[in-house]
Protein backbone atom coordinates (compact mmCIF):
# COMPACT_ATOMS: atom_id res chain seq x y z
CA UNK A 1 0.00 0.00 0.00
CA UNK A 2 1.42 3.38 -1.01
CA UNK A 3 0.51 5.95 1.62
CA UNK A 4 0.27 9.69 1.19
CA UNK A 5 0.56 12.33 3.89
CA UNK A 6 -2.32 14.72 3.38
CA UNK A 7 -3.31 17.89 5.21
CA UNK A 8 -7.01 18.77 5.43
CA UNK A 9 -8.15 22.28 6.32
CA UNK A 10 -11.71 21.83 7.55
CA UNK A 11 -14.35 24.49 8.21
CA UNK A 12 -15.58 24.30 11.79
CA UNK A 13 -18.67 25.83 13.32
CA UNK A 14 -20.75 25.03 16.38
CA UNK A 15 -23.79 27.12 17.31
CA UNK A 16 -22.77 29.91 19.70
CA UNK A 17 -19.09 29.72 18.78
CA UNK A 18 -17.10 31.60 16.13
CA UNK A 19 -16.32 29.91 12.82
CA UNK A 20 -12.76 28.69 12.26
CA UNK A 21 -10.68 26.30 10.17
CA UNK A 22 -8.85 23.33 11.73
CA UNK A 23 -6.00 21.57 9.98
CA UNK A 24 -5.49 17.82 10.35
CA UNK A 25 -2.70 15.73 8.84
CA UNK A 26 -3.46 12.11 7.98
CA UNK A 27 -1.66 9.18 6.37
CA UNK A 28 -3.88 7.65 3.73
CA UNK A 29 -3.68 5.19 0.87
CA UNK A 30 -3.07 6.90 -2.47
CA UNK A 31 -6.19 5.42 -4.12
CA UNK A 32 -8.41 6.69 -1.28
CA UNK A 33 -11.23 9.15 -1.78
CA UNK A 34 -11.71 12.39 0.14
CA UNK A 35 -14.51 10.87 2.24
CA UNK A 36 -12.01 8.27 3.51
CA UNK A 37 -9.78 11.09 4.77
CA UNK A 38 -12.75 12.78 6.49
CA UNK A 39 -13.65 9.46 8.12
CA UNK A 40 -10.07 9.12 9.30
CA UNK A 41 -10.09 12.60 10.86
CA UNK A 42 -13.35 11.82 12.67
CA UNK A 43 -12.33 8.35 13.87
CA UNK A 44 -8.74 9.10 14.89
CA UNK A 45 -8.42 12.83 15.53
CA UNK A 46 -11.69 14.57 16.37
CA UNK A 47 -14.99 12.75 17.05
CA UNK A 48 -16.76 16.10 17.39
CA UNK A 49 -16.38 16.72 13.64
CA UNK A 50 -19.82 16.53 12.05
CA UNK A 51 -20.41 15.64 8.41
CA UNK A 52 -22.93 13.60 6.44
CA UNK A 53 -22.33 10.46 4.44
CA UNK A 54 -24.07 7.16 3.76
CA UNK A 55 -23.54 5.24 0.53
CA UNK A 56 -19.92 6.00 -0.39
CA UNK A 57 -20.66 5.68 -4.13
CA UNK A 58 -22.59 8.76 -5.30
CA UNK A 59 -26.03 7.28 -4.81
CA UNK A 60 -27.33 9.02 -1.69
CA UNK A 61 -25.95 12.53 -2.28
CA UNK A 62 -25.59 13.18 1.43
CA UNK A 63 -21.83 13.88 1.60
CA UNK A 64 -21.82 16.86 -0.82
CA UNK A 65 -19.52 19.72 0.19
CA UNK A 66 -16.96 22.10 -1.28
CA UNK A 67 -13.46 20.82 -1.88
CA UNK A 68 -10.95 23.60 -2.55
CA UNK A 69 -13.92 25.89 -3.23
CA UNK A 70 -15.65 23.63 -5.75
CA UNK A 71 -18.82 21.64 -5.05
CA UNK A 72 -18.12 17.90 -5.20
CA UNK A 73 -19.05 14.53 -3.76
CA UNK A 74 -16.08 13.45 -1.60
CA UNK A 75 -17.08 9.79 -2.00
CA UNK A 76 -16.08 9.81 -5.68
CA UNK A 77 -13.34 12.44 -5.52
CA UNK A 78 -9.92 10.85 -5.33
CA UNK A 79 -7.42 12.42 -2.93
CA UNK A 80 -4.84 12.60 -5.71
CA UNK A 81 -7.21 14.70 -7.87
CA UNK A 82 -7.45 17.52 -5.29
CA UNK A 83 -4.10 17.37 -3.48
CA UNK A 84 -1.03 19.09 -4.89
CA UNK A 85 1.17 17.88 -2.04
CA UNK A 86 1.86 21.45 -0.86
CA UNK A 87 -1.35 23.20 0.17
CA UNK A 88 -3.95 21.56 2.43
CA UNK A 89 -7.17 20.29 0.89
CA UNK A 90 -9.81 22.79 2.01
CA UNK A 91 -13.21 21.34 2.97
CA UNK A 92 -16.22 23.62 3.46
CA UNK A 93 -19.99 23.16 3.66
CA UNK A 94 -22.27 23.82 0.68
CA UNK A 95 -23.22 27.44 0.03
CA UNK A 96 -26.80 28.75 -0.02
CA UNK A 97 -27.90 26.43 2.81
CA UNK A 98 -28.05 27.35 6.52
CA UNK A 99 -25.04 25.84 8.31
CA UNK A 100 -25.98 23.48 11.15
CA UNK A 101 -22.57 22.34 12.39
CA UNK A 102 -19.14 22.01 10.71
CA UNK A 103 -19.77 20.48 7.26
CA UNK A 104 -23.47 19.80 7.90
CA UNK A 105 -26.05 22.09 6.31
CA UNK A 106 -29.82 22.21 6.82
CA UNK A 107 -31.37 20.59 3.75
CA UNK A 108 -34.97 20.60 4.97
CA UNK A 109 -36.15 23.49 2.79
CA UNK A 110 -34.40 21.96 -0.22
CA UNK A 111 -36.25 18.66 0.23
CA UNK A 112 -39.54 20.51 0.69
CA UNK A 113 -38.95 22.13 -2.70
CA UNK A 114 -38.13 18.75 -4.23
CA UNK A 115 -41.37 17.38 -2.75
CA UNK A 116 -43.31 20.25 -4.32
CA UNK A 117 -42.17 19.15 -7.78
CA UNK A 118 -43.82 15.77 -7.28
CA UNK A 119 -40.93 14.02 -8.99
CA UNK A 120 -40.76 10.30 -8.27
CA UNK A 121 -37.24 8.92 -8.02
CA UNK A 122 -37.75 6.11 -10.50
CA UNK A 123 -38.16 6.34 -14.26
CA UNK A 124 -38.17 4.06 -17.29
CA UNK A 125 -34.77 2.71 -18.26
CA UNK A 126 -33.23 3.14 -21.67
CA UNK A 127 -33.46 0.07 -23.92
CA UNK A 128 -29.72 -0.36 -24.18
CA UNK A 129 -26.72 -0.99 -21.95
CA UNK A 130 -24.36 0.22 -20.68
CA UNK A 131 -25.77 3.35 -19.12
CA UNK A 132 -23.23 5.94 -18.10
CA UNK A 133 -23.57 8.95 -15.83
CA UNK A 134 -22.46 11.42 -18.46
CA UNK A 135 -23.80 9.59 -21.54
CA UNK A 136 -20.29 9.20 -22.94
CA UNK A 137 -19.30 5.74 -24.04
CA UNK A 138 -16.81 3.81 -21.93
CA UNK A 139 -13.79 2.97 -24.07
CA UNK A 140 -13.99 -0.47 -25.70
CA UNK A 141 -17.52 -1.14 -24.39
CA UNK A 142 -19.96 -0.95 -27.29
CA UNK A 143 -23.60 -0.27 -26.30
CA UNK A 144 -26.00 -3.16 -26.92
CA UNK A 145 -29.80 -3.35 -27.09
CA UNK A 146 -31.57 -5.30 -24.34
CA UNK A 147 -34.66 -7.49 -24.45
CA UNK A 148 -37.30 -7.41 -21.74
CA UNK A 149 -38.32 -10.35 -19.58
CA UNK A 150 -41.84 -11.54 -20.44
CA UNK A 151 -43.19 -10.47 -17.05
CA UNK A 152 -41.91 -6.87 -17.22
CA UNK A 153 -43.37 -4.10 -19.36
CA UNK A 154 -40.22 -2.01 -18.91
CA UNK A 155 -36.99 -2.07 -16.99
CA UNK A 156 -36.91 0.83 -14.56
CA UNK A 157 -34.16 2.71 -12.81
CA UNK A 158 -33.61 5.50 -10.33
CA UNK A 159 -33.52 9.04 -11.66
CA UNK A 160 -30.05 10.46 -12.21
CA UNK A 161 -30.62 13.30 -9.73
CA UNK A 162 -29.48 12.21 -6.26
CA UNK A 163 -30.70 15.41 -4.55
CA UNK A 164 -27.20 16.22 -3.28
CA UNK A 165 -27.73 20.00 -3.34
CA UNK A 166 -24.50 20.65 -5.23
CA UNK A 167 -26.29 22.60 -7.96
CA UNK A 168 -28.04 24.76 -5.35
CA UNK A 169 -24.66 25.65 -3.85
CA UNK A 170 -23.05 26.43 -7.20
CA UNK A 171 -26.00 28.55 -8.42
CA UNK A 172 -25.36 32.34 -8.34
CA UNK A 173 -29.11 33.05 -8.47
CA UNK A 174 -29.66 31.14 -5.21
CA UNK A 175 -27.42 33.67 -3.48
CA UNK A 176 -29.72 36.53 -4.51
CA UNK A 177 -33.15 34.87 -4.27
CA UNK A 178 -33.49 32.37 -1.43
CA UNK A 179 -36.95 31.40 -2.68
CA UNK A 180 -35.65 30.51 -6.15
CA UNK A 181 -36.78 26.94 -6.89
CA UNK A 182 -33.20 26.27 -7.88
CA UNK A 183 -31.59 24.07 -10.50
CA UNK A 184 -32.52 20.75 -8.85
CA UNK A 185 -36.13 21.80 -8.27
CA UNK A 186 -36.57 23.08 -11.82
CA UNK A 187 -34.86 20.02 -13.32
CA UNK A 188 -37.24 17.88 -11.24
CA UNK A 189 -40.21 19.84 -12.60
CA UNK A 190 -38.91 19.16 -16.12
CA UNK A 191 -38.62 15.41 -15.38
CA UNK A 192 -42.07 15.27 -13.76
CA UNK A 193 -43.58 17.20 -16.67
CA UNK A 194 -42.14 14.72 -19.17
CA UNK A 195 -43.57 11.76 -17.27
CA UNK A 196 -47.15 12.93 -17.77
CA UNK A 197 -49.60 14.15 -20.42
CA UNK A 198 -52.30 14.89 -17.87
CA UNK A 199 -53.29 18.51 -18.68
CA UNK A 200 -54.04 19.42 -15.04
CA UNK A 201 -50.66 18.15 -13.82
CA UNK A 202 -48.83 19.74 -16.74
CA UNK A 203 -50.54 23.07 -16.02
CA UNK A 204 -49.59 22.83 -12.34
CA UNK A 205 -45.94 21.98 -13.10
CA UNK A 206 -45.54 24.65 -15.77
CA UNK A 207 -47.22 27.13 -13.43
CA UNK A 208 -44.56 26.40 -10.81
CA UNK A 209 -41.79 26.83 -13.38
CA UNK A 210 -43.34 30.06 -14.68
CA UNK A 211 -43.72 31.59 -11.21
CA UNK A 212 -41.90 34.49 -9.61
CA UNK A 213 -39.14 32.20 -8.32
CA UNK A 214 -39.07 29.91 -11.35
CA UNK A 215 -37.13 29.58 -14.59
CA UNK A 216 -37.07 33.29 -15.45
CA UNK A 217 -34.94 34.05 -12.36
CA UNK A 218 -32.09 31.91 -13.71
CA UNK A 219 -29.10 34.01 -14.86
CA UNK A 220 -28.02 31.32 -17.32
CA UNK A 221 -24.62 30.96 -15.67
CA UNK A 222 -24.75 27.18 -16.21
CA UNK A 223 -22.71 26.65 -13.01
CA UNK A 224 -25.22 23.97 -11.96
CA UNK A 225 -24.61 21.86 -15.04
CA UNK A 226 -20.87 22.28 -14.63
CA UNK A 227 -20.96 21.15 -10.98
CA UNK A 228 -23.54 18.32 -11.17
CA UNK A 229 -21.81 15.00 -10.38
CA UNK A 230 -24.62 13.07 -12.08
CA UNK A 231 -24.72 14.94 -15.40
CA UNK A 232 -28.37 15.89 -14.85
CA UNK A 233 -27.80 19.13 -16.82
CA UNK A 234 -30.21 21.28 -14.78
CA UNK A 235 -29.41 24.37 -16.85
CA UNK A 236 -30.35 22.56 -20.07
CA UNK A 237 -33.65 21.54 -18.48
CA UNK A 238 -34.33 25.11 -17.30
CA UNK A 239 -33.77 26.32 -20.87
CA UNK A 240 -36.10 23.60 -22.19
CA UNK A 241 -38.82 24.70 -19.74
CA UNK A 242 -38.34 28.30 -20.88
CA UNK A 243 -38.77 27.22 -24.50
CA UNK A 244 -41.99 25.36 -23.73
CA UNK A 245 -43.37 28.27 -21.70
CA UNK A 246 -42.45 30.78 -24.42
CA UNK A 247 -43.99 28.58 -27.11
CA UNK A 248 -47.23 28.25 -25.15
CA UNK A 249 -47.38 32.04 -24.74
CA UNK A 250 -46.91 32.51 -28.47
CA UNK A 251 -49.58 29.94 -29.21
CA UNK A 252 -52.00 31.72 -26.87
CA UNK A 253 -51.18 35.05 -28.52
CA UNK A 254 -51.88 33.82 -32.03
CA UNK A 255 -55.02 32.00 -30.97
CA UNK A 256 -56.35 35.35 -29.83
Amino acid sequence: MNALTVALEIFRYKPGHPMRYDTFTVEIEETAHVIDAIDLVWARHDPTLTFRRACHHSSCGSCALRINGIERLPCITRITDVCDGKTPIRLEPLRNFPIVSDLVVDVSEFFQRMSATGMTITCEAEDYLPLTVDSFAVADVVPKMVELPENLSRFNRFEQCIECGICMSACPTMATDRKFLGPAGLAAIYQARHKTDDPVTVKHLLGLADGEHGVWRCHSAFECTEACPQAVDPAGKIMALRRELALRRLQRLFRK
Partner: protein
Amino acid sequence: MTLRKIMPDLLELNDGLFVAVTESDLAFKERFLEGCAACNIRASEISVAHALALEPFLNSAILAAVQIPDGVFEPFRFCLAFLASAQQNGAVVRTFTEVTDFVFGGRDLIGVKTRDHRTGKDETIGADVIINAAGPWAGEIAGKAGVSVPEVPTAGVMVALDCRLNNMVLNRLNKPSDGDIVVPQRATSVIGTTSWQVEDPDLIIIPPEHVDRMITQGEQLLPVVRKVPMRAKMAVARPLIARSGTDARDLSRTFECFDHMRDGVSGFVTITGGKTTTARAMAERVSDIVCQKLNVKAECRTRDVPLTSYRSFFKSQTL
Protein backbone atom coordinates in the same frame (compact mmCIF):
# COMPACT_ATOMS: atom_id res chain seq x y z
CA MET B 1 -42.79 -8.68 -1.04
CA THR B 2 -43.69 -6.54 1.96
CA LEU B 3 -41.22 -3.84 0.90
CA ARG B 4 -42.89 -3.65 -2.53
CA LYS B 5 -46.12 -2.86 -0.75
CA ILE B 6 -44.87 -0.26 1.70
CA MET B 7 -42.23 1.52 -0.40
CA PRO B 8 -43.11 0.97 -4.08
CA ASP B 9 -41.55 4.24 -5.24
CA LEU B 10 -38.16 3.45 -3.75
CA LEU B 11 -37.36 0.31 -5.73
CA GLU B 12 -35.85 -0.59 -9.05
CA LEU B 13 -37.85 -3.73 -9.77
CA ASN B 14 -36.06 -5.48 -12.62
CA ASP B 15 -35.86 -9.08 -11.38
CA GLY B 16 -32.66 -11.02 -10.86
CA LEU B 17 -30.67 -13.74 -12.55
CA PHE B 18 -28.68 -16.48 -10.84
CA VAL B 19 -26.20 -17.83 -13.37
CA ALA B 20 -23.97 -20.90 -13.41
CA VAL B 21 -20.46 -20.08 -14.58
CA THR B 22 -18.78 -23.33 -13.52
CA GLU B 23 -19.76 -27.01 -13.24
CA SER B 24 -19.85 -26.50 -9.47
CA ASP B 25 -22.45 -23.73 -9.96
CA LEU B 26 -24.43 -25.97 -12.28
CA ALA B 27 -24.45 -28.76 -9.69
CA PHE B 28 -26.01 -26.30 -7.20
CA LYS B 29 -28.95 -25.49 -9.50
CA GLU B 30 -31.38 -28.20 -8.37
CA ARG B 31 -30.79 -27.38 -4.71
CA PHE B 32 -31.36 -23.70 -5.46
CA LEU B 33 -34.63 -24.36 -7.30
CA GLU B 34 -35.84 -26.59 -4.46
CA GLY B 35 -34.95 -23.88 -1.94
CA CYS B 36 -36.87 -21.25 -3.91
CA ALA B 37 -39.91 -23.56 -4.13
CA ALA B 38 -39.78 -24.19 -0.39
CA CYS B 39 -39.83 -20.42 0.21
CA ASN B 40 -42.55 -19.76 -2.40
CA ILE B 41 -40.18 -17.75 -4.56
CA ARG B 42 -41.11 -17.89 -8.25
CA ALA B 43 -37.91 -19.11 -9.91
CA SER B 44 -37.80 -20.08 -13.56
CA GLU B 45 -34.91 -21.47 -15.53
CA ILE B 46 -34.40 -19.63 -18.81
CA SER B 47 -32.19 -20.52 -21.75
CA VAL B 48 -28.66 -19.18 -21.93
CA ALA B 49 -29.57 -17.44 -25.20
CA HIS B 50 -32.52 -15.72 -23.54
CA ALA B 51 -30.38 -14.67 -20.57
CA LEU B 52 -27.84 -13.14 -22.96
CA ALA B 53 -30.60 -11.26 -24.79
CA LEU B 54 -31.82 -9.82 -21.48
CA GLU B 55 -28.31 -9.07 -20.26
CA PRO B 56 -26.00 -8.66 -23.27
CA PHE B 57 -22.85 -8.08 -21.17
CA LEU B 58 -23.32 -11.35 -19.30
CA ASN B 59 -20.55 -13.93 -19.71
CA SER B 60 -21.54 -15.78 -22.89
CA ALA B 61 -19.97 -18.98 -21.51
CA ILE B 62 -22.55 -19.37 -18.71
CA LEU B 63 -24.03 -22.84 -18.35
CA ALA B 64 -27.47 -22.03 -16.91
CA ALA B 65 -29.62 -19.10 -15.76
CA VAL B 66 -32.51 -18.86 -13.29
CA GLN B 67 -34.75 -15.80 -13.19
CA ILE B 68 -36.28 -14.73 -9.89
CA PRO B 69 -38.27 -11.69 -8.69
CA ASP B 70 -35.74 -9.23 -7.32
CA GLY B 71 -35.18 -5.53 -6.93
CA VAL B 72 -32.82 -2.85 -5.76
CA PHE B 73 -33.40 -0.13 -3.21
CA GLU B 74 -31.29 2.77 -2.10
CA PRO B 75 -30.29 2.11 1.51
CA PHE B 76 -30.18 5.81 2.41
CA ARG B 77 -33.67 6.68 1.18
CA PHE B 78 -34.90 3.32 2.50
CA CYS B 79 -33.78 4.32 6.02
CA LEU B 80 -35.09 7.87 5.69
CA ALA B 81 -38.54 6.60 4.67
CA PHE B 82 -38.73 4.47 7.83
CA LEU B 83 -37.47 7.33 10.00
CA ALA B 84 -39.84 9.84 8.39
CA SER B 85 -42.75 7.46 9.03
CA ALA B 86 -41.64 7.04 12.64
CA GLN B 87 -41.49 10.83 13.04
CA GLN B 88 -44.97 11.11 11.59
CA ASN B 89 -46.10 8.75 14.34
CA GLY B 90 -44.45 10.70 17.16
CA ALA B 91 -40.83 9.54 17.19
CA VAL B 92 -38.00 12.02 17.69
CA VAL B 93 -34.86 11.20 15.71
CA ARG B 94 -31.59 12.64 17.07
CA THR B 95 -28.94 12.45 14.41
CA PHE B 96 -25.30 13.29 15.24
CA THR B 97 -26.08 12.28 18.83
CA GLU B 98 -23.87 9.73 20.56
CA VAL B 99 -24.82 7.47 23.45
CA THR B 100 -22.10 8.15 26.01
CA ASP B 101 -23.46 6.13 28.94
CA PHE B 102 -26.54 4.70 30.60
CA VAL B 103 -28.39 5.73 33.74
CA PHE B 104 -28.77 2.84 36.18
CA GLY B 105 -31.38 2.37 38.86
CA GLY B 106 -29.73 -0.51 40.70
CA ARG B 107 -29.11 -3.09 37.92
CA ASP B 108 -31.90 -1.69 35.78
CA LEU B 109 -31.47 0.77 32.96
CA ILE B 110 -33.65 3.83 33.33
CA GLY B 111 -32.08 6.33 30.96
CA VAL B 112 -29.49 7.24 28.37
CA LYS B 113 -26.77 9.87 28.52
CA THR B 114 -26.13 11.50 25.17
CA ARG B 115 -23.93 14.09 23.52
CA ASP B 116 -25.15 16.04 20.49
CA HIS B 117 -22.01 16.61 18.42
CA ARG B 118 -23.62 19.49 16.55
CA THR B 119 -23.79 21.56 19.72
CA GLY B 120 -21.60 19.68 22.21
CA LYS B 121 -24.63 19.58 24.51
CA ASP B 122 -24.93 16.67 26.97
CA GLU B 123 -28.35 15.41 27.94
CA THR B 124 -29.94 12.64 29.94
CA ILE B 125 -33.09 11.04 28.56
CA GLY B 126 -35.24 8.89 30.81
CA ALA B 127 -36.78 5.71 29.40
CA ASP B 128 -39.15 2.90 30.32
CA VAL B 129 -37.32 0.59 27.93
CA ILE B 130 -34.11 1.12 25.96
CA ILE B 131 -33.71 -0.68 22.62
CA ASN B 132 -30.17 -1.18 21.41
CA ALA B 133 -30.42 -1.17 17.62
CA ALA B 134 -26.91 0.14 16.97
CA GLY B 135 -26.02 -2.26 14.17
CA PRO B 136 -22.31 -3.13 14.22
CA TRP B 137 -21.95 -0.95 17.31
CA ALA B 138 -24.54 -2.99 19.26
CA GLY B 139 -21.81 -4.92 21.10
CA GLU B 140 -20.10 -1.69 22.18
CA ILE B 141 -23.40 -0.21 23.39
CA ALA B 142 -24.29 -3.40 25.25
CA GLY B 143 -20.88 -3.21 26.91
CA LYS B 144 -21.76 0.20 28.37
CA ALA B 145 -24.68 -1.53 30.10
CA GLY B 146 -22.39 -4.27 31.39
CA VAL B 147 -23.84 -7.02 29.19
CA SER B 148 -22.67 -8.71 26.02
CA VAL B 149 -24.27 -9.84 22.78
CA PRO B 150 -22.80 -12.48 20.45
CA GLU B 151 -22.28 -10.06 17.62
CA VAL B 152 -19.28 -9.73 15.33
CA PRO B 153 -18.84 -6.56 13.22
CA THR B 154 -18.06 -7.95 9.78
CA ALA B 155 -16.95 -5.77 6.91
CA GLY B 156 -17.40 -6.24 3.20
CA VAL B 157 -15.80 -4.43 0.28
CA MET B 158 -17.89 -3.22 -2.65
CA VAL B 159 -16.71 -1.74 -5.91
CA ALA B 160 -18.93 0.64 -7.90
CA LEU B 161 -18.22 0.86 -11.63
CA ASP B 162 -18.47 3.97 -13.73
CA CYS B 163 -21.32 2.59 -15.80
CA ARG B 164 -24.28 0.27 -15.52
CA LEU B 165 -23.67 -3.04 -17.25
CA ASN B 166 -26.81 -4.91 -16.15
CA ASN B 167 -30.47 -4.21 -15.50
CA MET B 168 -31.16 -7.29 -13.39
CA VAL B 169 -29.39 -8.21 -10.15
CA LEU B 170 -26.80 -10.80 -11.18
CA ASN B 171 -25.76 -13.56 -8.78
CA ARG B 172 -23.57 -16.64 -8.97
CA LEU B 173 -25.74 -19.74 -8.75
CA ASN B 174 -23.96 -21.13 -5.70
CA LYS B 175 -23.51 -20.74 -1.98
CA PRO B 176 -22.54 -17.20 -0.89
CA SER B 177 -18.94 -16.30 -1.67
CA ASP B 178 -16.77 -13.29 -2.39
CA GLY B 179 -17.71 -11.21 -5.40
CA ASP B 180 -20.76 -13.29 -6.25
CA ILE B 181 -23.22 -10.47 -6.93
CA VAL B 182 -23.42 -7.44 -9.22
CA VAL B 183 -26.13 -5.03 -8.14
CA PRO B 184 -27.13 -2.39 -10.68
CA GLN B 185 -28.31 0.95 -9.43
CA ARG B 186 -28.97 4.15 -11.38
CA ALA B 187 -26.00 4.41 -13.79
CA THR B 188 -23.62 2.13 -11.90
CA SER B 189 -23.07 -1.54 -11.28
CA VAL B 190 -21.79 -2.47 -7.83
CA ILE B 191 -19.79 -5.67 -7.30
CA GLY B 192 -19.96 -7.21 -3.84
CA THR B 193 -18.64 -8.36 -1.53
CA THR B 194 -15.96 -9.79 0.72
CA SER B 195 -16.41 -10.62 4.37
CA TRP B 196 -13.99 -10.25 7.25
CA GLN B 197 -14.28 -9.53 10.94
CA VAL B 198 -13.20 -6.09 12.13
CA GLU B 199 -12.34 -4.73 15.55
CA ASP B 200 -13.53 -1.17 15.01
CA PRO B 201 -16.58 -0.45 12.83
CA ASP B 202 -15.76 3.27 13.00
CA LEU B 203 -12.85 2.99 10.63
CA ILE B 204 -12.43 0.20 8.11
CA ILE B 205 -9.30 0.23 5.99
CA ILE B 206 -10.02 -1.42 2.65
CA PRO B 207 -7.47 -4.15 1.84
CA PRO B 208 -6.37 -3.50 -1.78
CA GLU B 209 -6.45 -7.23 -2.56
CA HIS B 210 -10.19 -7.26 -1.75
CA VAL B 211 -10.76 -4.66 -4.47
CA ASP B 212 -8.77 -6.79 -6.92
CA ARG B 213 -10.85 -9.82 -5.92
CA MET B 214 -14.09 -7.96 -6.67
CA ILE B 215 -12.86 -7.13 -10.16
CA THR B 216 -11.62 -10.69 -10.81
CA GLN B 217 -14.84 -12.25 -9.54
CA GLY B 218 -17.02 -9.64 -11.25
CA GLU B 219 -15.39 -10.57 -14.55
CA GLN B 220 -16.79 -14.07 -14.15
CA LEU B 221 -20.27 -12.62 -14.48
CA LEU B 222 -19.57 -9.62 -16.71
CA PRO B 223 -16.31 -10.00 -18.65
CA VAL B 224 -16.11 -6.29 -19.56
CA VAL B 225 -15.78 -5.28 -15.91
CA ARG B 226 -12.04 -4.71 -16.17
CA LYS B 227 -12.49 -2.27 -19.06
CA VAL B 228 -14.74 0.01 -17.02
CA PRO B 229 -13.26 2.69 -14.73
CA MET B 230 -13.99 2.36 -11.02
CA ARG B 231 -16.32 5.05 -9.66
CA ALA B 232 -15.93 4.24 -5.97
CA LYS B 233 -14.88 1.56 -3.51
CA MET B 234 -16.25 1.22 -0.04
CA ALA B 235 -16.45 -1.03 3.00
CA VAL B 236 -18.94 -0.94 5.83
CA ALA B 237 -19.49 -3.28 8.75
CA ARG B 238 -22.53 -5.51 9.18
CA PRO B 239 -23.64 -6.84 12.54
CA LEU B 240 -23.45 -10.61 12.22
CA ILE B 241 -24.40 -12.99 14.98
CA ALA B 242 -21.65 -15.38 16.03
CA ARG B 243 -23.23 -18.75 16.70
CA SER B 244 -20.92 -21.18 14.94
CA GLY B 245 -17.34 -21.10 13.75
CA THR B 246 -15.12 -18.07 13.38
CA ASP B 247 -15.02 -17.69 9.61
CA ALA B 248 -16.97 -14.59 8.59
CA ARG B 249 -18.75 -16.52 5.82
CA ASP B 250 -20.06 -19.00 8.41
CA LEU B 251 -21.69 -16.31 10.51
CA SER B 252 -25.44 -16.18 10.32
CA ARG B 253 -27.25 -13.41 8.40
CA THR B 254 -30.29 -13.96 10.57
CA PHE B 255 -31.36 -11.59 13.31
CA GLU B 256 -32.00 -12.08 17.00
CA CYS B 257 -33.53 -10.14 19.80
CA PHE B 258 -31.93 -10.30 23.26
CA ASP B 259 -33.93 -9.32 26.33
CA HIS B 260 -31.20 -8.51 28.83
CA MET B 261 -33.41 -9.64 31.68
CA ARG B 262 -31.51 -12.85 30.98
CA ASP B 263 -28.38 -11.00 32.17
CA GLY B 264 -30.19 -9.56 35.18
CA VAL B 265 -30.65 -6.11 33.57
CA SER B 266 -34.21 -5.05 33.04
CA GLY B 267 -35.42 -2.32 30.70
CA PHE B 268 -32.82 -3.13 28.03
CA VAL B 269 -33.30 -5.05 24.77
CA THR B 270 -30.86 -5.58 21.89
CA ILE B 271 -31.94 -6.31 18.33
CA THR B 272 -29.07 -7.21 16.04
CA GLY B 273 -27.89 -9.29 13.10
CA GLY B 274 -30.04 -9.35 10.00
CA LYS B 275 -29.78 -7.46 6.75
CA THR B 276 -31.23 -4.20 5.51
CA THR B 277 -34.00 -6.10 3.76
CA THR B 278 -35.10 -7.57 7.10
CA ALA B 279 -35.05 -4.22 8.94
CA ARG B 280 -38.84 -3.94 9.07
CA ALA B 281 -39.25 -7.48 10.34
CA MET B 282 -36.58 -6.82 12.98
CA ALA B 283 -38.44 -3.72 14.14
CA GLU B 284 -41.67 -5.74 14.35
CA ARG B 285 -39.99 -8.42 16.46
CA VAL B 286 -38.44 -6.02 18.93
CA SER B 287 -41.57 -3.86 19.13
CA ASP B 288 -43.64 -6.93 19.99
CA ILE B 289 -41.22 -7.82 22.77
CA VAL B 290 -41.21 -4.28 24.15
CA CYS B 291 -45.01 -4.10 24.00
CA GLN B 292 -45.14 -7.32 25.99
CA LYS B 293 -42.75 -5.87 28.60
CA LEU B 294 -44.81 -2.68 28.89
CA ASN B 295 -48.09 -4.57 28.84
CA VAL B 296 -49.22 -2.75 25.71
CA LYS B 297 -51.62 -4.68 23.52
CA ALA B 298 -51.28 -3.51 19.93
CA GLU B 299 -50.92 -5.15 16.53
CA CYS B 300 -47.86 -4.22 14.50
CA ARG B 301 -49.06 -2.44 11.33
CA THR B 302 -45.78 -1.82 9.54
CA ARG B 303 -46.18 -4.66 7.04
CA ASP B 304 -49.30 -3.00 5.60
CA VAL B 305 -48.95 0.75 6.02
CA PRO B 306 -47.08 2.50 3.17
CA LEU B 307 -44.15 4.59 4.31
CA THR B 308 -44.24 8.34 4.10
CA SER B 309 -41.90 10.19 1.72
CA TYR B 310 -38.22 10.04 2.63
CA ARG B 311 -38.07 13.75 1.79
CA SER B 312 -40.25 14.63 4.78
CA PHE B 313 -37.61 13.29 7.17
CA PHE B 314 -35.68 16.53 6.87
CA LYS B 315 -38.57 18.78 7.88
CA SER B 316 -37.65 18.65 11.53
CA GLN B 317 -33.88 18.75 11.36
CA THR B 318 -33.24 22.36 12.29
CA LEU B 319 -31.65 22.97 15.68
